[in-house]
């Protein structure tokens, strides 16, 4: 007789009908997100193994990320503080925060395009909540972010900067980021599975956004036109995390903008996901 095969397989009640009502579609989407969330150990493991595999066999492992970000921040910091005639003591902490946060954002946007296409084999061989793959992409990028945080800590320590209690204001902002990131991954992941030419478009948009958003330049350099900045969704979202960490309080306009853009993003993602969820497997 066999020594114990595992008598476990997910309990299931599957009831799928065609021509579903909007309510039924929404229910299935809610179920996808709920059961996807309970599978977070899987999503965590997948995200962690992604990072581990990317750097397996290299001497520094994932700390290559830290090193390359550190070099980028250091060299850009010296170059631009000279170009912009700015005090390095003031500019470098700002730049380190901006670059690390922007790297996270742009990598996330770019990788969310592949959220479902990279998992095509799994999606076509087992019924799995699509939300798992969204969590995986977000976790993978949060882990990369965690490695880059070292750079910020080092820069802040070198310049003896302590943001004070204001820094706590970036916590609700971080929660908003995670929500937005999950929504974005569902939206772009599905959209890019259907239309394969989205990813290059997205990448060029992010390239332009990098220059239009105060990442390497400071908002006050715009002079009187600084009031227009909240129109840029990337600025609002970046600022609500960045400003508190630099000891400032983001303006109400910035917070309102960030909340509004997040609301629109989550709404669009939900609408799209509830509609397209059942079709994603056919697109891969």
């Amino acid at each position, binding site marked *: 007789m066999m020594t114990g095969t*595992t008598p476990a397989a997910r309990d299931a009640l599957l009831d799928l009908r065609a021509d579903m009502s909007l309510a039924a579609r929404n229910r299935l989407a809610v179920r996808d997100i709920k059961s996807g969330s309970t599978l977070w150990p899987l999503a965590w493991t997948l995200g962690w193994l992604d990072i581990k595999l990317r750097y397996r066999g290299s001497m520094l492992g994932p700390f290559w990320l830290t090193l390359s970000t550190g070099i980028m921040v250091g060299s850009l910091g010296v170059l631009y503080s000279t170009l912009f005639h700015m005090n390095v003591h003031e500019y470098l902490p700002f730049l380190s925060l901006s670059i690390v946060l922007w790297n996270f954002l742009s990598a996330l946007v770019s990788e969310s395009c592949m959220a479902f296409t990279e998992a095509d084999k799994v999606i076509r061989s087992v019924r799995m909540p699509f939300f798992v793959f969204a969590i995986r992409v977000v976790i993978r990028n949060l882990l990369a972010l965690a490695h880059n945080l070292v750079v910020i800590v080092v820069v802040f320590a070198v310049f003896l900067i302590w943001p004070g209690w204001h820094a706590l204001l970036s916590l609700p902002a971080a929660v908003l980021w995670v929500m937005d990131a999950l929504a974005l991954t569902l939206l772009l992941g599905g959209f890019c599975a259907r239309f394969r030419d989205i990813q290059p478009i997205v990448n060029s948009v992010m390239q332009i956004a990098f220059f239009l958003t105060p990442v390497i330049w400071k908002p006050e350099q715009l002079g009187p036109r600084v009031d227009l900045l909240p129109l840029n969704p990337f600025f609002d979202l970046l600022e609500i995390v960045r400003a508190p960490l630099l000891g400032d309080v983001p303006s109400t306009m910035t917070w309102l903008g960030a909340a509004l853009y997040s609301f629109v993003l989550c709404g669009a993602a939900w609408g799209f996901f509830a509609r397209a969820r059942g079709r994603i497997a056919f697109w891969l």
Partner: protein
Amino acid sequence: MAPTTNARVSIEGVSVSFPLYHGSARSLKKLVFAAASGRLGQDRQKRVVVEALRNVSFSLRGGDRLGLIGTNGAGKTTLLRTLAGIYEPVTGRVRVEGSLNALLDPSLGMNLDLTGRENIMLRGLYNGMPRASLGQLEEDVTAFAGLSDFIDLPVRIYSSGMIVRLGFALATAIRPQILLMDEWILAGDAQFIDRAKLRLETMVRGADILVLSTHEASIIRTWCSRVLWLDEGRIRADGPPDAVLEQYLGHPLEPVTEATATEHL
């Protein structure tokens, strides 16, 4: 005989069709331009669709063993994927009660760059197992595949025999109420094959409902109590194995003997 429980499968008037996206249909740019020039409606109509399943209905209860036969492209794999809930029907209704495991791709989630241990853990998590029972899974799979010293090395350096054994052990480690199998998976060297056969048969016997797609008439005759003949996505015949097989093969079957039944295993 398998225990009869409340496992149920029922499929009513299910059709599944694949839109064929190739070339320009994959491009958002082309779609936008087509819409702008008012050609979208026409484009929609012209979209090539493959009807993989057409109006398929049947139901299965605990104890049923269904074999699927048909030529390549008849819709066998699509039917299995629809039962597994991977493809959602375009028309009709799919209802499945009971834990289900679909062995559609025996190498599911197997990553050659990961170690044996990591692959086992990942498979357990894919099946929604709690972390606490992953240890048991690991023990079972390692012992069965005989990987003891290699468990912490990347699968890439395993011998091909070891990879086959690991894949098989993983595929058969989870015992569902409803088992869907695309082809009778059995592989390995002569020494391994007897143990593999025993393990697979234990899993198949343990399942309340089996749906098996295969080209081998002898496997159908050994394991199945009912056969569906799919042809171009439609059910062409549905009935007891021997009757449907004779119709399908176009000649009378030889009587089943122990030798012919096990020949292909």
